[in-house]
């Protein structure tokens, strides 16, 4: 078991740079998740670690070994593909035994290792079937089994759950988490789904335009986003953003006049100095907003009642959307106007470029 280290890794296709100087570390036994919108380069980065894409510059190490120019097979990594990439002409057993046979493992050893993986993944009764005879979830497990059998230093997962239906996805997500705990291997998991990222990751790497925007433990990223993009990307429902300008500042923080809200003010805790009139964006998590008669007056538009919790979809006077989480048996009716307040300590402040102000 080894950790992974990327040092200033870049990749270009012709003249287009798709990965720009990424440096990151996934510690031994950690599950790191690459997350980001489509086209952010997360899959490319994973494939570079696997050796399926050439690295233009920089260094990739697995354990303490530089693998940047080493063939995929020699890197001791296993990968689970989005499409599963099961060999359609081989049985489940043969799919899982493929790499062992190439490595000329003994028959007994092959059988034992495949049996063990099949047991872990509950595939024992399907070993003689062809992939086409399996359900989506079973295929997924075969793909994982094929990876397990190799006993690699690192597991790589490329959006492994995206071809499954919602229910199965939740179930497999839990299974993966359990698997990680059980075998304790270093894993990198690529997804565009921030819920998967949040639930699985020891450490999340948010990518955008080929660069790591922020990395850290899931809750670190949630509570303390480095920029507006992270704030908006992590968390569901997403963080609300209100633009405004600074009207006053004291030791406790700033007072902000929200655009298009008839001069209504919100307060935010802030240490750094701002000048009156500075443009800022306030980030407000739905669960931090609560009804408060002295707060921001908003118009109710729709209520999503989920039982224990309801989401109130509201709009500020100028039409900016604001989602409020409401915990209580009886959410307010749609038609009523309400006022919402927030603890200044929970307000996250960004400058006009979207950079975090602290």
């Amino acid at each position, binding site marked *: 078991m080894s950790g992974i280290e990327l040092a200033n890794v870049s990749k270009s296709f012709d003249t287009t740079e798709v990965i720009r100087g990424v440096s990151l570390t996934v510690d031994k036994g950690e599950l790191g998740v690459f997350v980001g919108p489509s086209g952010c380069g997360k899959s490319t980065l994973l494939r570079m670690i*696997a*050796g*399926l894409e050439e690295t233009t510059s920089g260094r990739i190490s697995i354990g303490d070994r530089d693998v940047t120019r080493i*063939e*995929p*097979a020699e890197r001791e*990594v*296993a*990968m689970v*593909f989005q*499409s599963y*990439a099961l*060999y*359609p*002409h081989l049985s489940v057993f043969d799919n899982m035994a*493929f*790499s062992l046979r*190439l*490595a000329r493992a003994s028959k007994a050893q092959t059988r034992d290792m495949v049996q063990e993986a099949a047991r872990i993944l509950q595939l024992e009764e399907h070993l003689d079937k062809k992939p086409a005879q399996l359900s989506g979830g079973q295929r997924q497990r075969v793909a994982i089994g*094929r990876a397990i059998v*190799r006993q690699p230093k690192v597991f790589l997962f490329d959006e492994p759950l995206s071809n499954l239906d919602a229910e199965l996805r939740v179930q497999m997500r839990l299974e993966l988490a359990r698997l990680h705990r059980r075998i304790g291997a270093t894993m990198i998991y690529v997804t565009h789904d921030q819920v998967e990222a949040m639930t699985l990751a020891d450490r999340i790497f948010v990518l955008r335009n080929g660069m790591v925007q922020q990395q850290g433990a899931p809750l670190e990223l949630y509570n303390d986003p480095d920029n507006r993009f992270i704030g908006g990307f992590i968390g569901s429902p997403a963080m609300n953003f209100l633009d405004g300008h600074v009207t006053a500042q004291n030791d406790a923080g700033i007072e902000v006049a929200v655009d298009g809200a008839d001069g209504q003010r919100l307060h935010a805790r802030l240490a750094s100095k701002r000048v009156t009139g500075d443009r800022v964006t306030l980030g407000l998590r739905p669960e931090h907003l609560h009804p408060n008669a002295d707060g921001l007056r908003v118009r109710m538009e729709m209520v999503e009642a989920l039982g224990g919790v309801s989401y109130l979809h509201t709009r500020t006077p100028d039409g900016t959307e604001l989602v409020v989480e409401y915990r209580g048996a009886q959410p307010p009716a749609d038609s009523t106007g309400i006022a919402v307040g927030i603890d200044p300590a929970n307000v996250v402040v960004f400058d006009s470029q979207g950079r975090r102000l602290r």
Partner: protein
Amino acid sequence: MTMIHNRRRHYLVAASLVAPFMVILALVFLYPAIRMVALSFTNGPLIGAGDWVGLDNYRRLLSDNLFYTSLKNNGYFIVLTVLPTTLLALAIALMINRLSGRLQATMLALFFLPYILPVSVVTQIWSWMLDFQFGIVQPLLAFITGKPIPVFRNPHWVMPMVALVTIWWTNGFNVLLFIAGLRNIPVDLFEAASLDGASRRQKFCRITWPLLWPVTALVLTLQLILQLKIFDQVYLMSQGGPFNSSYVLLLMVYREAFQLNNGGYASAVALVLFVLIMVVSVLQFQLLRLGGGKR
């Protein structure tokens, strides 16, 4: 009630859609085919009625040395073309598949080009290239064998050369089939195999070859049928000679029917060829499927 009604209407619509094709098929294939079978039991000319002679034509066929010569030559031609052209097409397809973009398109076009030529043009080109007096290939032959060779007039060279021309002519289509087959194999599988530690050769043996097998079986079967029907090239380049060493069954049909006006005997030969093609190709396809299923 409505269900039944609907189903009946369904059949009617289906029948009306299939009918034009069936009528045309019956008119231009089924009817002539039946007439041909009937003709093979008579001593009739190419056109007009003949007398019923029972199995005489078939009996005569079994004692006709030319029939056995032709049969042997057909077999020899199959050996010379079917497997070589399939393997060659596969090799070319694998090479082209590794190219990309415009270069790939250009190479594919180059290999496919001969296929669009009519047979008369193909044979003309090769007759010129291999002309004993003036052919540009003759110096090469002279260099290899020590003297120029009249390839289509030499009993040992004629069939291999006809096979060579045939392969040159038809290989492009097989290449195309293989390329289509190769493109059908997801790239993921090769990547997964790379990670599993497969070498280039192992990837070919364990992934490409088994997954391409249905295409290979198709190409082999199509080739077998096509090459059993060899006629044009022989007719145009060697006329069956020398010493009947390129005489084939269809040439026999042609000569008996159109030169000698022996409609009945020609039909018998044609029918035997038809049955032969059917039996051999079905047999081969079953064998290939069996071979593929075991993998």
